[in-house]
């Protein structure tokens, strides 16, 4: 007993307790639901059997059915575009802002705080406002574009199949900016100043310092942000519901919205779960990349 106690205060036991408890918690509350979902994708599920684990087993039928639907491929393609476009946009905008506010000028830290807005606003409100901003007839985006003479007819961001997905991406970039910005700002703050001094002595200009010091030193932060950004983007569906409803004609439909639509509008839980499993595989790939990237992190 004493040995166990002393291991907990001083040795490996401390580490084991620190990871053990949360992992047990997560296994129960997040791991089991994940398994439940995977299981459902191989079963036929209806309202009566939601609560039971034993349900008619259908093998890969849900998967096969899904891939015979004509829209599947285009939806998966949309998903990739959505994820890549959103993450790239959020990251670039967020990083630019973080760098900008990293410059020390009076008011910088206050103004930086305002960029948290997109994280606080309720999804319902955000959706409604973007719905309005992106409206074809009276939206402010068209209004501004026309006032500045950039376009001369209204662009129907939401209803033109060529634009609808990008409209949601635009809104999602706005939404993700705060998260990226504030975390990248924290990461920047943690880089020791003397590295920049050394780099400056070595003749590196601001641009070179950014590429050779800032970026590699922030590797662990950037890795975490992109990994999490990916997951958030893959869960985003408020915006789809508010702005395009996946339309027109599925041109802005993505896997997560489709999964939600199948599960909660068409009550086809099996297929909904199947899509989420496909997405899980996608994330698994990304998670592996992230975990591998942590090998090159710099320990302080």
């Amino acid at each position, binding site marked *: 007993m004493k040995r166990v106690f002393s291991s907990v205060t001083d040795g490996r036991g401390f580490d084991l307790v620190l990871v053990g408890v949360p992992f047990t918690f997560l296994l129960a509350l997040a791991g089991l639901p994940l398994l439940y979902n995977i299981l459902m994708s191989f079963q036929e599920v*209806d*309202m*009566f*059997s*939601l*609560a*039971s684990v034993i349900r008619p087993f259908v093998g890969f039928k849900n998967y096969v059915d899904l891939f015979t639907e004509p829209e599947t491929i285009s939806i998966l393609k949309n998903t990739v575009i959505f994820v890549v476009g959103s993450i790239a946009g959020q990251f670039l905008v967020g990083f630019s802002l973080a760098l900008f506010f990293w410059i020390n000028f009076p008011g910088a830290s206050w103004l930086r705080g305002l960029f948290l807005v997109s994280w606080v606003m309720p999804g319902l409100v955000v959706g409604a406002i973007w*719905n309005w901003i992106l*409206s*074809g*007839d*009276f939206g402010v985006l068209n209004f501004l574009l026309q006032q500045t003479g950039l376009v001369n007819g209204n662009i*129907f961001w*939401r*209803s*033109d*199949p060529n634009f*609808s997905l990008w409209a949601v991406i635009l809104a999602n970039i706005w939404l993700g900016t705060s998260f990226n910005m504030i975390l990248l700002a924290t990461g920047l703050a943690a880089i020791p100043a003397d590295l920049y001094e050394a780099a400056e002595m070595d003749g590196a200009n601001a641009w070179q310092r950014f590429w050779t010091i800032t970026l590699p030193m922030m590797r662990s932060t950037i890795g975490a942000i992109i990994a999490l950004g990916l997951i958030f983007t893959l869960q985003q569906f408020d915006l789809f519901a508010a*702005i*395009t*409803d*996946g*339309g*027109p*004609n*599925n*041109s802005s439909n993505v896997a997560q919205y489709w999964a939600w*639509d199948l*599960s*909660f*509008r*068409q*009550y*086809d839980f099996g297929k909904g779960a199947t899509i989420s499993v496909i997405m899980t595989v996608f994330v698994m790939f990304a998670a592996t990349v992230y975990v591998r990237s942590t090998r090159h992190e710099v320990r302080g």
Partner: protein
Amino acid sequence: EDVKLVLWSLDRDIQPAPNLIKEFNAQNNGIQIEYRQLQFDDVVSEAMRAYSTGKAPDIIAIDNPNHAMFASRKAFLDLTDMIQQSKVIKPENYFPGPLKSATWDNKYYGVPKATNTIALYYNKDLFKAAGLDPEKPPQTWTDLVATAKKLTNPSKNIYGITFSAKANEEGTFQFLPWAQMGGATYKSINSEGAVNALTVWKQMLDEKLASPDTLTRSQWDSTATFNAGNAAMAISGPWEIDRMLSDAKFQWGTALLPVPGEGAQRSSAMGDFNWAIFSSTKHPKEAFKALEFFASKDATMYKNFGQLPARSDLPVPPTGNALKDSALATFVEQLKYAQPRGPSPEWPKISKAIQDAIQAALTGQMAPKAALDQAAAKIKSIDG
């Protein structure tokens, strides 16, 4: 010890359920009802989840196209016998459409709670400005298109008409009456009349008589553009009346939905909820008593809550506001032709097939006929 019942609905504080419950509980007749408010999107999934974990409420208000899904699985209690013996609830007092939506296999699995439908609103000022007779709204589809063309004025940001072809149940709700007026049903969604209907819709979008955003805008948001004076006509339901009275700064009127041609059969969509009792209830009698109480209040439904009872035996009392009364008259008339969606336990999937067809045709990615053919095939495979 009082019997405790749980009731779920999406009614807010100014809507019937919570208020009726208050009244009911105040009677102190040994039954107390506990209320929970749900969101529109969640009613079915919450109910399913609760039902499958044995935590279903006793009574629920369910959207009429979803009724069959529960009824067909016997998740709802068969009320046929109780209704037969009831002095308050009499099937013959109800509009046939709403009643049909609560019926499955010729048995009653619920009672219509309220009803609504869609009709045409139009802006009389804009009619006048376009040289049209404000008292002669369009009667037929061709009429409608021609009128819309005249009313459309891009320089003033005015569209001829607004409606919703959104990729959700609202799109189906708006399109189905058109298809049905053309003689189609959901089982024959690719029949000629439906194709015509879709072709007319497509024409209105292609010619920019309606905003391209019709494809992604809900009925409520669409009608808001009408209220703001940016659309000359709107297709929507009675729920708009109050907002229109306060927001619309112009003269407006209502009319029945135009028909395909002179004298053609009318049809309309039917909305709103039904009462149902879960088959898992431990107190079926008490629950039915509550339904009887609610039905007994149908007469004041409009006055108190602005909703139309699904009853053909109750006149809608005048409100004192002429504009409102005339609009209501239109809707009550339109209700006579209202048909339920389905009923089918697979309605959500059927509806999805219809939405897909509408969107595919309106975005020009498929011809109306081809799109509806595809939908028909899908519906066939779903409906068996």
